């Protein structure tokens, strides 16, 4: 079983002309976990990943796998599998010959080609020219390329884009399985909701800079807790809340009380003899925290 290496970004910066696409980015990605690399479009995710893979030269800083730069890896495809965009194919080549070319270049057994095509569910289309593939099939072929060397590290740029719902469910399980086997899995996305069911950790960047780093649960901040409460006798409920000094506003599904303690509201209503029809804590969404971090003004 291949073991994952630690991915380390150390003070990576990249300037295109005078514009800083990535600015002093540092973080590490641990094996055995799925790490979501998140940020709005244009935040510098793809540039960072391309620097990591030696495709783009950083203006300064280093990015390594277990301390080794990509170009210095003795067996790159056996160490790191990467899927970048969904269009890196010659349309006239079949899926099998596309993968065959790179299996030869990397010195991998030709049997791996059909193995990975089977693994991503493209075995039936192996002899078809890639030019006729749908976006979802191209995504799967990109993933097959990443898996060719059975690598311990997976770097996937927006792998969920263009997948159908069945494909999305499949890739979520796939990412979990890869991490459970001890591999390092780094997945970028511009939508938290796309990956929140599969990631353990999140690295969030905006405008080329790191804005948040930590386990997914660290996004679950509750700065202003709210509890939704309602009653058939809403006027008396309002009076009870006012008497207890709890601020509230009127929402679509009931009163939004400024407290994170539903039991307190239950007790107040009971004491005031008011029947309750709704009582539940409103969770601040992960997406809300994410949007706040990356600056809600951006189009996502």
């Amino acid at each position, binding site marked *: 079983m291949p073991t994952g290496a630690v991915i380390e970004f150390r003070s990576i910066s990249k300037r295109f002309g005078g514009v800083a696409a990535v600015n002093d980015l540092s973080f590490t990605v641990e094996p055995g976990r799925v790490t979501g690399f998140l940020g709005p479009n244009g935040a510098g995710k793809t*540039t960072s990943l*391309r620097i990591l*893979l*030696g*495709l*783009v*030269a950083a203006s300064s800083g280093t990015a390594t796998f277990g301390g080794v730069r*990509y*170009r210095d*890896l003795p067996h*790159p*495809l056996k160490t790191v599998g*990467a899927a*970048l*965009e969904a*269009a*890196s*194919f*010659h*349309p*006239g*080549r*079949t899926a099998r*010959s*596309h993968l*065959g*070319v*790179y299996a*030869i*270049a*990397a*010195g991998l057994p030709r049997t791996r080609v059909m193995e990975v095509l089977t693994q991503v569910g493209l075995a039936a289309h192996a002899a078809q020219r890639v030019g006729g593939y749908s976006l979802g099939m191209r995504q799967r072929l990109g993933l097959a*390329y990443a898996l060719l060397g059975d690598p311990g590290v997976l770097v996937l740029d927006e792998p969920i884009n263009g997948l159908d719902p069945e494909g999305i469910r499949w890739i979520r399980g796939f990412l979990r399985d890869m991490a459970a086997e001890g591999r390092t899995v780094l997945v970028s996305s511009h939508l938290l909701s796309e990956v929140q069911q599969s990631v353990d950790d999140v690295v969030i960047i905006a405008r080329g800079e790191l804005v948040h780093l930590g386990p997914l649960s660290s996004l679950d901040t509750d700065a202003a807790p709210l509890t939704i409460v309602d009653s058939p006798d809403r006027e008396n409920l309002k009076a009870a809340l006012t008497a207890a000094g709890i601020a509230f506003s009127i929402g679509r599904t009931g009163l939004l009380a400024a407290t994170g303690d539903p039991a307190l509201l239950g007790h107040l209503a009971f004491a005031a003899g008011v029947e309750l029809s709704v009582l539940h804590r409103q969770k601040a969404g992960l997406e809300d925290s994410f949007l706040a971090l990356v600056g809600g003004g951006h189009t996502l």
Partner: protein
Amino acid sequence: MNMFLRSVSAEFAKIFTTRLWWILAIVLFCYIGLLAGGLAALFAGIQTGVISPDAVNTGGGAVSFGSLPPLVYSFASSVGYVFPVLIGALATTGEFRHQTLTPTFLATPRRGLVLGAKTVTLVLVGAGFGVVALTASVGIGGGVLSAFGVDALLLDSETWLLVARTLLAMGLWAAIGVGLGVLVPNQVASIVIVLAFTQFVEPLLRLAASFLEVTAKIGNFLPGAASDALVGASVFTMASPAGTAPLGWWQGGFVLLGYAVAATVIGYAVSWKKDVT
């Protein structure tokens, strides 16, 4: 197997897993077969008197084109050289166009090594195109000459040296194509340059240069002229008015090699080693 040989093998797989190579090879065979066969018939016809000299208005008398077989056989390179250039340029610009540089450089991060492997591969593929073109020019052209009773010189060692030099020239042309491809990675621009230069610009330059002795000497260093010098025979050198001696065959070879190396090295710096985005 070491990394370089693996890369060469992968580059061969890239060529032979798309349709381009055999389409170009078929067109090359038909084109050269038609030209070599047709012109062999015309020249041999005139030389042997089957076609009246008056019919081609040469002022009467017997006409001699020198030895016909080398002239006919050299169509393989003097006209066919555009095909190895095209496949070299397409194989290289295709990597940019289809963004296959990404998987290529992920599998083999040593970019200079990949470009070297591509050049070696295309030199061999270019020589393969040489085999195709010579099969047409020697096979069809030689057959037509024999039919007119002209000795096709198939047992002459000079003929086989010309064949060998033609293979070398075709290989070098494919390397020039690779160089052009990294120099001008835009595929459409690259094809336009190949076609415009080989079919129009260079023939005109060679003709214009040939009228004065000074310019004729410079004109000898044009790639097409150098190629004809390497092969040792060409319908173009036959047609040049000034009597300037062409380069020696090995000089012509080095001039071609120089073009290939210069284009590839400059192209490596301007496109191949740049960011792949």
